[in-house]
């Protein structure tokens, strides 16, 4: 019974994504782009760098990079915390 529900959910989701999604998407190669056109035109004067992606990551969207650094820190601390040999050996 649970298998039938799982297959039904998967097939309905895939049909919706392939058919319904592509009627709502923009054609490939012509994205709507007013904000990105402003960033491409003004990145050399305002941020002073030739690399527009680097200027977006550290200057226009710097707050997201701060959040990403926090997630990286938390994940590394999680790995170092889980993988410690336990101090008391339990006798089973």
């Amino acid at each position, binding site marked *: 019974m649970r298998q039938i529900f799982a297959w039904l959910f998967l097939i309905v989701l895939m049909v919706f994504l392939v058919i319904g999604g592509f009627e709502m998407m923009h054609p490939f190669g012509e994205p709507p782009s007013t904000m990105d056109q402003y960033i491409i035109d003004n990145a*050399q*004067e*305002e*941020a*002073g*760098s*030739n*690399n527009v*992606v*680097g*200027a977006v*990551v*550290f*200057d226009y969207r*710097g*707050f997201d*990079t*701060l959040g990403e*650094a926090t997630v*990286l*820190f938390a*994940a*590394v601390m999680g*790995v*170092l915390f889980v*993988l*410690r*040999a336990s101090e008391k050996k339990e006798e089973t």
Partner: protein
Amino acid sequence: MSKIVRTVASQLMAFVLVFGLYVIMHGHVTPGGGFQGGAIIASGVVMLIVAFGSGQIKKFLRERRLSMVESSGALLFILVAFAGIGTVFFYNFLVGSRIFGGIPPTGSNPGDVWTGGVIPLMNLAVGLKVTAGLSAAVLALALFSSGEEMEE
């Protein structure tokens, strides 16, 4: 591993370090930046772990030193972000000043390293953080599956 693999790996680590630092520090001129350069140096450390075994690498890369490098990278990032607090939180206050303060001409040009404002400092901070973090995670995984644990 055999003697050829160990010798070649220890000689190649110098080139990997130089290439990784080049990608980190030229992040505002060519494609690259902090995340990509940090991943390059961390993969060099993984090459050393595979060649020499995790028991020998554990004596050089202790957990406290890696944790200090990672925390100092995060602190440098936050300090540089707070230094422009006069206008707004992440303000680029070094554009047009004397440190890293050139402005490139509009359009296609051969790149100049002495541009970019606050971006090269942030690249260095994120590069330190990603290097130390990924090396510590892989070293902890390698040590745990061979039965020892990381030294304090």
